[in-house]
Every structure is written in structure tokens, then in C-alpha cells.
């Protein structure tokens, strides 16, 4: 399969996906959990099995002077109330007053976070992602330093990072959409998923690049750069797919059988790994080749390969 020849198509698809994601994020934004904004989340179940009237519950709480941000339904009898930061005592007051009136509620979980911690978490998350990107770029450049021709080792690193950023942006875009459709929030677990996806996505990319490196160093048949990349891709395709399938199978079982609190965490992973595999196979190498071709146009051939080595 000639992916290198068809690379324009894949780059275009990715470009569109990224554009869509950026639009979603700009328009809908990302719904942040209380871990980033501060506030309180109270999850209650109706012990009498009756559907909870979310409007009346909201009014009840607000009548006690507490600002309610949203009341979301997990099921008809399982509801999450998001409000401004309140103390444990106040929460107990809410529950007892609700149970004195028409409700019969039992607390399932209660999280409360002051706003200062929220800001901290935001900054820490951004720092973590930034450092991860820097560390990975550095590592790849180091690992591939022996391959300076015809493409410098930095190009390997940066191509991998571009593929990685592509993955992260698309996952963010997807979750921006999910935030609107399903009310999903971004929390620290989501950031964890993003960071792990970054690790995995690069993992895949490296296997392909590793093969490219090997073939370049040998280059017995004096193929062009594009052809070397294409061959490497074909050789590693089976392995990439198999690995991704095993991880996806495991994640699917977690998604279906796992607990509800990590459901979206796993969903983020699934999307991330699927996109990550796609980008490692189709995008990372495409970027590498595009870059090489782009550079070549402006510079004499002699700088990269000796004329005798290059077959066009």
C-alpha cells in the first residue's frame, strides 16, 4: 500500500479533523470539573426509587442560599448536583431538608474543593503537558541522532510531536463536543488520559521511525527517501495494528464492564489510542516525507545524498 504517495489525502483528512476540533473548542469550550473550577459536587440516589425532579431539587437548595450550577442526571434516580463550594455541614443540612420534604435521598459521593486548589490544578496540568512534550521531543531527537541523513534527527522528533499534538487536539475537540452532547467534564483523570495517550502515540510512532532508521542506515538498494519510508510502513503495519487491537480490546472490556466513575476516562483513552495509531501510521511519516521534499526543493541535492546514491 502506497501511503506515502497518498499522503496528501491523509494530511487533508487530519487537517479537517483538527480544524473541526479547534472550532468545537473555540465555540463550545471545555466543560471543566470542580477539580479545576472549585465548587461542590453532590451525587445522590433516590432510595424510594422515584424519579428525582431536578428543578424542584435545585429550587430547594437555592432557597437555602446556595448557588446551584447544574443538576445532571446519570439515571432517573441518580443525580449529580453541582454548586458553589459548601462545607460538609451545609451538605448535611441540604440532605436533611430535602428528606424532610418530598425527597428521599441518600448521598453516594460528595466532593468539595476550594477555588485556590482549582487554579493550582489547572496550572499543574498545563505544566505537566508542556514538560511531557519537551521531554519526548528531546528523547526522540537523542534516540535518532545517528540518522542525520537525509533528514536530521530533529525532524524525526518534531514530526512525532506534530502527530502527537494532532492526537491531543482531536481528543480535546471530541470531548468539547461530548461536553455539549452528554455533559461530560474534563477532570484530572482526563489529563492523565491525555498524558498517557501522548506516551502511547509516540510509542507507536517510534516503532515506525525505528524501522525507517534501520532501512535508511542500510539502504542497500539506494531507494529514495519516500520509498524507504513507504517500505518501512508496510513492514510495520501488521505489528502496529495487532498491538493497537490488543490494547483496544482490553480498553473495550474496561469500558463495558468497568465502573461508572472511570467510564469517560476509558472513552478518552479509546479515542486517543485509535487516533494515535492512525497518526503514527499515516501522519507522522507523511510529515517526515513532506518536510524532506519541501527542503529538497530549495537546496542542491549534493547536500543530502551523494549523487551516486540517489535514484529518482
Amino acid at each position: 500500500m502506497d501511503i506515502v504517495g497518498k499522503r496528501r489525502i491523509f494530511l487533508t483528512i487530519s487537517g479537517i479533523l483538527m480544524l473541526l476540533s479547534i472550532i468545537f473548542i473555540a465555540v463550545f469550550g471545555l466543560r471543566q470539573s470542580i477539580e479545576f473550577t472549585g465548587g461542590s459536587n453532590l451525587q445522590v440516589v433516590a432510595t424510594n426509587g422515584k424519579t428525582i425532579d431536578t428543578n424542584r431539587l435545585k429550587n430547594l437548595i437555592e432557597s437555602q442560599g446556595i448557588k446551584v450550577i447544574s443538576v445532571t442526571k446519570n439515571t432517573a434516580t441518580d443525580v449529580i448536583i453541582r454548586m458553589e463550594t459548601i462545607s460538609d455541614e451545609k451538605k448535611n443540612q441540604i440532605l436533611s431538608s430535602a428528606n424532610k420534604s418530598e425527597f428521599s435521598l441518600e448521598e453516594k459521593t460528595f466532593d468539595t474543593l476550594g477555588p485556590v486548589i482549582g487554579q493550582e490544578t489547572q496550572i499543574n496540568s498545563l505544566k505537566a503537558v508542556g514538560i511531557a512534550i519537551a521531554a519526548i521531543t528531546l528523547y526522540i531527537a537523542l534516540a535518532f541522532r545517528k540518522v542525520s541523513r537525509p533528514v536530521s534527527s530533529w525532524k524525526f522528533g518534531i514530526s512525532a510531536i506534530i502527530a502527537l499534538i494532532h492526537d491531543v487536539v482531536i481528543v480535546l475537540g471530541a470531548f468539547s463536543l461530548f461536553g455539549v452532547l452528554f455533559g461530560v467534564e474534563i477532570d484530572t483523570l482526563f489529563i492523565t488520559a491525555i498524558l498517557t495517550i501522548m506516551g502511547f502515540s509516540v510509542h507507536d510512532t517510534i516503532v515506525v521511525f525505528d524501522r525507517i532508521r534501520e532501512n535508511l542506515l542500510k539502504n542497500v538498494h539506494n531507494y529514495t527517501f519516500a520509498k524507504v519510508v513507504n517500505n518501512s510502513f508496510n513492514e510495520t503495519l501488521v505489528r502496529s495494528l495487532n498491538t493497537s487491537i490488543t490494547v483496544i480490546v482490553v480498553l473495550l472490556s474496561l469500558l463495558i464492564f468497568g465502573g461508572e466513575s472511570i467510564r469517560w476516562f476509558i472513552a478518552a483513552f479509546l479515542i486517543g489510542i485509535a487516533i494515535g495509531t492512525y497518526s503514527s501510521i499515516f501522519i507522522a511519516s507523511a510529515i517526515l516525507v513532506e518536510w524532506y521534499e519541501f527542503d529538497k526543493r530549495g537546496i542542491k541535492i549534493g547536500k543530502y545524498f551523494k549523487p551516486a546514491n540517489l535514484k529518482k
Partner: protein
Amino acid sequence: MQRARIFIILTFIVSLILLVLDLPGKIDFRSVKIPFIENEKKIADFVYDPANISIPLGNFIIQKDLSYRLGLDLQGGTQLTYKVIMDDVEPDLRDDAYESSRNIIERRINLLGVSEPVIQTLKVGDEYRIIVDLPGVSNVSQAIDLIGQTAQLTFWEGDGTPVASQSGNTNPLYLVMGQLIGSNPVPTDLTGKDLQNASVVFDQTSGKPQVQIQFTNEGGRKFSEITKRNLGQIVAIALDNQVISAPVVQSEIVNGTAVISGNFTPDEAKGLSIALNGGALPAPLEVIAQKTVGPSLGIDSLQKSLFAALIGLASIIFFMVYIYKKEGFIAAVALAIYTIIVLFIFKLIPVTLTLAGIAGFILSIGMAVDANILIFERMKEELRRGKPRDIAIKNGFSRAWTSIRDSNITSIITTIILFYFGTGMVRGFALTLFIGIIVSMFSAITITKNMLLIFENKENIKKK
């Protein structure tokens, strides 16, 4: 080949031992009997209890609790994050105040009877924070009240100024005391520091709970002087900003014991005695974050994730055997051994398992398979080029190793970053993933390789 064989046999034996150690809960070997042997002898005469492992080694005994540690989200409980308000504490005394706050909290929690609490100190910028994990706590409000209470016990007497209806002081404590002992209450030098011990007793006649306190020698002396001075008058006992008792002194008390009777519920009395025994906090605390998981949700999550892990493992094994057939079976066995080793490491360190942590473990299983796949694919390539099987295996390994190493290192980098920046759940995930990746590299290189070598040899021998 000999080396490979020995290695594999050793590995199997160790794995079997670890498998037994991996099991949750107790196993009573005394009830396991060998059938058909006369008198049905027992296999062994002891009970294996993972929570109490002790191995005698000459003069030493290694004692370890090898039960699984479960995070709050799997067993239910509360996590409270406190900030120590250091505004009234001198800067150079702050570190001491921080440490003693932590110790006092720990004492109070232990007295409350919480099993396996975790108390961590975490300084963020200028903020002195203490994070308390209380697993399985059903009465969260009581715990919060108890931990957060400064618990400064003070004794006050009147100085003779008569009780006035208005007092110049707007402090609610003084207002209340003003009505009891006169508008100029004087703090005595007797405080909670002079306490030796506090306990809950029940009044003989009314059955109401009370707190009995035992003073130190010095405290006893002070107390006898106070009671002598205030015979027939009220002495006010205050805890922080509240008067909790205002008894009339009946007689001079020289035995250094006193009973505080207010309108206590049994829980309040218990809380008070714990707070007094633990000591007063040097600085007040404020709750800045709280996370509570109900116990039913916890158990539910645990069961679900274990089931998911099982299904995941089974699917991978099925997949590997289907695609790679004989080698796939070897990889499946290596994977099973891998799982056993990782679980044992979780017990040993110990790693507190959270939902995310289990997810990390399951993910690492997927990645462990990856290493095997890389090796097999390389092997197939070598075979396609016509190399004999044993060379194909060796080459497959050496070629694949650079890929495995480089790709796993990036994942390891992200787990280290996650561990450094994360808290709680995130850290659990980073740790399990990290351990999983390291062990998977080990298992692919050593176990898979040696098993392949053995089976190859057997095949060659059969052919000849």
C-alpha cells in the same frame, strides 16, 4: 539450552509461590486434605493469613502485612484536605506547629478507631496542608468535627466582680461566661496541657455520659488551688470558644481528678475525650477540600474493575493464540506469569490500588503484549528470509529490543511526569503503569525468550 531450562523451571516454581501469595484473604491449609490417604492427612498445619506474614530468619523475624491496599474509591471513605492557618504563628515556629498538628491529627484519628488511615503533609507555596485519608468511615461529620477542632481546654474563675447583664466584651465566650461567673472572667493557669488522661464515664444516677479527666501532678496541684479559692462558686470550663461546663465547686479537690458534665451525647463525650487525649492543636485548621465515596459505590467499582480485568486478560490470550498460534500460547503463559509478578509487587511495596490504578495495570497488560508481538513479527521476518529457527529467535529478540526500549521509555517518561505532578488517583495510575511497563520489559526479554528457546530445542530433537 540447559540454562534456559533451569531458568524456566525456577520461574515456574517462583510463580506458583507468588500465585499463592497473591490470593486475597486467608487460606486455611488445615482444612485442605489429601484424599484417600489414611486418616486424610492435612497438607499443612497452618493458616495462611496475608495480613500477618512473619518469616523467621535466625534471630530476626520479617513481619509484613501483605494484604491488598485499596484506595478510597474502592473501599469507600473520605479524603479531607486541611490548611493550617498560620497567621498567628511566628514564622520560625511554623514548621514545628506543622509537624505537631500532623501528629495530633494522627493521634486523634487512631483514637477514633479508623483502620489504616493515611495522613500526608504537603506544603504548596506558603500553604501548609495536611491530607487525611479515612477509609471506611461512616460518620464523616463526626470525623471532620473531631479533627478540625483546636481543642484548647481552659479553666476560668471569677474575680469577684458581680454578674452583670451586659459586658463590654463582645466575644461570645466572654458573654456567656460573664453571665456565669461575673463580668471579668479570669483565665487560670490550668489548661489542657496539664491533662494526663481523659476518658468517658457514665454518671451513676442519671446514666448520662461524662468526661473524666486526670491531671498531671502539676495540674493536680493547680486544680486543688483553684477549687480551694472558688469553694461554693462557679468555675467555667471552656473548649475553644465554647463553655462546655460550669459546675459549682463543692469541695477542694486534691486527688487531681475532675469530671466534666455538660449535656453530652455519647458521641460528643467520646469526641471530647479523644480531642483532649490527642492534645490541642497549635493552630486552627480549615477544610479546603473533601472527597467522599460511599461504601456501596466502592465495592461496586472494585467488583466491576476486577471483572473487566479478567475479561481483558482472557481476550488478549485468546487473540494471541488465535493469531500467533504456538508462539501465542507461549506469550499467553508469559503474560500469566507477568500478571502474577506484578500483583505480588503491588502487595509488596505496597501500592494502594485505585480505580485508575487498576486501569493502569490493565493497560500495561496490553502493552506487555506489544513487546511480545514486536518480537514475533521480527521472528517471522527472519524466518521468511530463510534463517533457521534458533537464529531467527535470537535475531528477532535483538532487533526488537531497540524498538521495545525506545517506545517504552517514552511511556515511562510520561508516567514519571504524571507521578510528579499528580495527586492521589493520578499517582496510583502512574505507579501501576510504571511497574507494569518495567515488569513487562523484563518478562518479554527473559521469560518469553527462554520459553521459546526450550520449545525450539524440543522441536529440533523430535525432528532428529
